[in-house]
């Protein structure tokens, strides 16, 4: 169905790990983003002509550099400089930058590159330069099919981000979400997937039945979600490459709130019957079902810790929605949220140290984080309605959805995806073709 995984071969031809002068601190809100120059990647005229035909882009070299530039910009950590100020031509800069020219425009880092089209393959090489030290910091080349050109831009960004921040990037990733259309009372919902930067949107279901809460398998291209197919709300699995769907939570009641275990081999979900919701797991290999909680309250929104040893979840056993943590076998249940208000949708950070959540207090909704023992609660953003945070694979950014208030006729309503840094800075609208909700961030597609 989706031919995303056409190969990308990466040649490392030299990574200089000499003491770099530039470093980007990502642990704090960055008020001084690093000035970086992203030179358009150079391309020879023969390659350009051939690629113009296949990709319908005037100059794929500058298109790839735009992808990189946009990624760096939205990260909030970098300030890509205007190309109008660049003095050096892309091809010459790639061979040997004249560092004085680049430091003149206050660039501290420089990205240069070259695109070649040969044997129907796209070969892209790039270099990252430390302008102040006058040194090459990194050089890499990729070979792939031409249609993968946006991914090349994302991989370049990941490499640059990693080299300058010391942490893995999150740019060569995708977001699966629920696309929404129509009036509130008759909303049409479809599963949709797009690149992290909002491009290459594909719709995975037709909108004939209600679908909710898609979540990526962290290890492959499977997705689990809730579908009301034939008016039976059940947990489903979808292979986004083949398009094959199958029901996994076919119990005599509603199954919902699914998520994968960190190794991708189990699904954890809620099963509701006779007015009571409890948490269950299903082993995807042998389909063995295990009951994890057994309590007359509502137990839902389970999420594993990255080592698979613990589960955080949402329960109203205290009378109101609160967050609990237990061992993955269901023992040692402990409430961790004690602040004022209601807490829901806990999601364990891929770094293991934090749990992101939704909080409702005095008619306002918040996205926040707390340590896994409930201490150190920090609210990142407040709004009329927002919920369901999902972590970027490096645990630095959260994506969630936000709804606006509607008037008595239902006008003014919208649902959109937003992202915010763990620091509480850099809140951004994530562009989607339609209204959108329930985002889930994939793992890095490469490496």
């Amino acid at each position, binding site marked *: 169905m989706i031919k995303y995984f056409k190969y990308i071969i990466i040649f490392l031809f030299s990574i200089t790990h000499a003491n770099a002068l530039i470093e980007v601190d990502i642990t704090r809100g960055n008020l001084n983003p690093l000035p970086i120059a992203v030179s358009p990647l150079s391309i020879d005229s023969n390659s350009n002509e051939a690629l113009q035909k296949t990709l319908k882009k005037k100059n794929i070299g500058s298109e790839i550099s735009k992808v990189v530039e946009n990624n760096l910009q939205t990260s909030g950590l970098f300030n890509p400089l205007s190309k109008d100020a660049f003095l050096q031509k892309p091809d010459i800069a790639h061979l040997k930058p004249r560092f004085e020219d680049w430091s003149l425009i206050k660039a501290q880092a420089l990205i240069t590159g070259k695109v070649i089209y040969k044997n129907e393959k796209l070969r892209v090489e790039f270099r990252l330069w430390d302008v102040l030290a006058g040194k090459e910091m990194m050089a890499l080349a990729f070979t792939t099919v031409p249609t993968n050109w946006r991914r090349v831009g994302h991989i370049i960004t990941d490499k640059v981000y990693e080299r300058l921040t010391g942490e893995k990037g999150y740019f060569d990733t995708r977001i699966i979400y629920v696309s929404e259309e129509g009036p509130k009372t008759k909303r049409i919902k479809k599963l949709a997937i797009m690149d992290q930067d909002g491009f290459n949107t594909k719709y995975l279901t037709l909108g004939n039945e209600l679908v909710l809460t898609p979540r990526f398998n962290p290890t492959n291209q499977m997705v689990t979600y809730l579908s009301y197919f034939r008016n039976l709300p059940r947990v489903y699995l979808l292979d986004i490459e083949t398009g094959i769907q199958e029901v996994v939570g076919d119990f005599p009641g509603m199954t919902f709130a699914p998520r994968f275990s960190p190794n991708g081999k189990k699904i954890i979900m809620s099963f509701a019957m006779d007015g009571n919701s409890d948490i269950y797991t299903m082993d995807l290999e042998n389909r063995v079902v295990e009951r994890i909680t057994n309590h007359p309250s509502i137990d839902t929104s389970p999420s594993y810790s990255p080592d698979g040893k613990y589960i955080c979840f949402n329960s109203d056993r205290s009378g109101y*929605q609160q967050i609990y943590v237990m061992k993955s076998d269901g023992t040692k249940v402990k409430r961790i949220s004690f602040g004022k208000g209601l807490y829901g949708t806990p999601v364990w950070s891929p770094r293991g140290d934090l749990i992101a959540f939704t909080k*409702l207090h005095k008619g306002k909704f918040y996205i926040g984080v707390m340590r896994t023992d409930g201490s150190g609660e920090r609210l990142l953003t407040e709004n009329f309605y927002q*919920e369901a945070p999902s972590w970027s694979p490096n645990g630095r950014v959260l994506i969630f959805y936000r709804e606006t208030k509607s008037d008595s006729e239902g006008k003014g309503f919208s649902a959109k995806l937003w992202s915010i840094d763990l620091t509480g800075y850099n809140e951004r609208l994530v562009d989607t073709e339609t209204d959108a909700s329930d985002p889930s961030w994939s793992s890095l597609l490469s490496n």
Partner: protein
Amino acid sequence: MNLTKIFKNAFMIMLASLVLSACATKKVTNQMQGDVYTGKDTVEYLASGVADRVFFATNESVLTTASRETLRKQAAWLRKNSKINVVLEGHADERGTREYNLALGERRANSVKDYLMTYGISGNRISVISYGKERPVDSGSNPLAWSKNRRSVTVKAN
């Protein structure tokens, strides 16, 4: 001096009573008791006099006195029409997280099911589905709209 004070007080009282009566009329048009909807705007009928839905307080699945009265009528109608099966559709308002609301809708529909069963309706004739906050009847973002949406609706299945 005293007279002006009396006038002033009288004026204040008049003003206060005006405000209060305004509140009172508002409450009637709001058609809510506490935050449970008591109006008929969205109600449909399974048969003459047999309302199809009951309403709930925020975050609650407890049946109110009015709800129990409605459900006794539904039970009587179901006893008379023994070939009819029903689906109970449980719903929540938009002011809660999606997954919790799915569970809450299921809980609401089941408290209706339990009540109907105590009035002699077989569990085999009743199925339950939760829509959480996915199918509001009123698309407004205000307390009255939310009260109409916190509901369980009894729908003929055949």
